[in-house]
């Protein structure tokens, strides 16, 4: 698989990232290097191997429906780059009609 500018544009849009000129060239190269490294795995025949999704064989790991307060409102907002006393603040992404 080959990563080209179009693929990077698509991925960048999905992740809301922007790459221009040199930085786009750099990310195309990076992604291609990563992919070719992983392609090494293609040397193995995996026809009869089912995909590994879970790290253990456990099933039905469930919790009771009860409330446990783990962090406070202030702690929740603490690491936010922008906030007020109540809310997380993010750049406005819907224009007023």
């Amino acid at each position, binding site marked *: 698989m080959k990563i080209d500018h179009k693929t990077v544009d698509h991925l960048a849009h*999905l992740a809301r990232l922007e790459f221009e000129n040199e930085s786009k060239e750099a990310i195309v190269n990076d992604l291609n290097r990563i992919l070719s490294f992983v392609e090494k795995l293609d040397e193995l025949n995996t026809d009869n191997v089912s995909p590994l999704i879970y790290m253990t064989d456990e099933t039905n*790991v469930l919790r009771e*429906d009860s409330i446990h307060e*783990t962090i406070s409102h202030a702690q929740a907002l603490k690491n936010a780059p*922008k906030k007020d006393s109540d809310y997380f603040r*993010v750049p406005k992404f819907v224009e007023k009609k």
Partner: protein
Amino acid sequence: MDTIYDKYEPVIGLEVHIQLLTRSKAYSSDANEYGNMPNTNIDPISLGHPGTLPKANKKVIEHAVKLGLACNCHITEVNQYARKNYFYADLPKGYQITQDKTPICTGGHITIKNDDGTEKQIFLTRIHMEEDAGKNIHDQAPYHTLVDLNRAGVPLLEMVSEPDIRKSEEAYKYLTEVRKLVRYLDICDGNMEEGSLRCDANISVMKKGSTEFGTKVEVKNMNSIRNVQRAIEYEIKRQIDLLENGESFPMETRNFDAVTGKTHSLRSKEAANDYRYFPEPDLQPVIISEKYIEQVRSTLPPLPDFLFKKYVNQYGLSEYDAGVITDSKSIALYFEDLIANTTNYKAAVNWLMGDIKSTLNQEALSIEKFPVKPAQIAALIQLIDENKISHTVASQKVYPKLLEQPDKSPYDIAEQNNWLQQNDANSLNEFINQVIGKYPDKVQDYKNGKTNLLGLFMGEVMKLSKGVADPKLINELLKKKLEE
């Protein structure tokens, strides 16, 4: 006469999001509560902090199985969760934990009743478990969008119908049934205005007789069942008008505006959303055994459709009465209790939908808060059936007293107030003689053929009995006496 609109057949499928009544969230232990201060129902998991691990809430699975059983779905044995990836400020993890290839319920149906009394089954594609997103507030700060994550991670079931709906009225009925069902099951409060029940409609039209569906448009933002119907009606007309003009329209998502009754374009679907679903490795599979399913089945309440059929077929109630009673679970449960204590089903309906309903309306009470137990109402019905009191006395005298003293037996109330019918012929004949003595000329008129004077005599006798004599018996005795 046929219009251009009759040349087309609408094809409608509905997606309903059902917000579940649980204490805590779907994958974390912060509270699932509506109306709290912003960002107080939070937890590192629902905030999407790195290194946190979700853990699925048992109750969500139970609720999903309940709904599946109530809709006759197949319950999936091996359930996996999946990540649906997209970027939005109200989704801090960058993905929604949902189900993709193994929805917990498949197949099944919702039965709706057409106006002509026939039934139609709307088949279901699937019901799957997922989580809600937070809330973005765009209009409170000039340069920022405010994010409240109280709702992030609240458990949802998404119920997807097959494109079986052909009319806006059918969509209305389908949603009414779904709302009734989730309320009977006690898994969702069914409040569309507050968004705990949400509906998106997929609408297309095709020429009658065609087998190929037209271009599909998804309509969102309808906050009542009536508005879903309005949006569908508007959209069907819009699509047919365009087609008849020889115009095509894109596959897209449209927003419904309740004020104008119109839909307008929200975003094009042509660049299909790339959600990059993959299995959620942080949540182990959930295996649902036959034993578990049977255990949940045994906890199901009687369902509205079952009760409706029982009332009509076994108890001989009219479809109207059966419909009114099963419309709300609490009324139906009261009625169930009532008919466990009396076999006069018709009287039970009349009391419940008459006197009791008007008390509830006057006092703004719910039936759960109604003070008089069903057994007491049944005892009152029995007093009437045994001719101990007349219906009028029961309704106007005993019932109001019963509301004040709900634990006192209706018989004791009637007895202590001298409201029991005087049904011994001797004392009634005594009254009759008094009346006949009082109006000798009227008696003569009666004997000469003015038989409508009977009402006057009856009224007089009733007055002497202080309103508690059995009218049928007075009538009988009076006639006998006058025709001697």
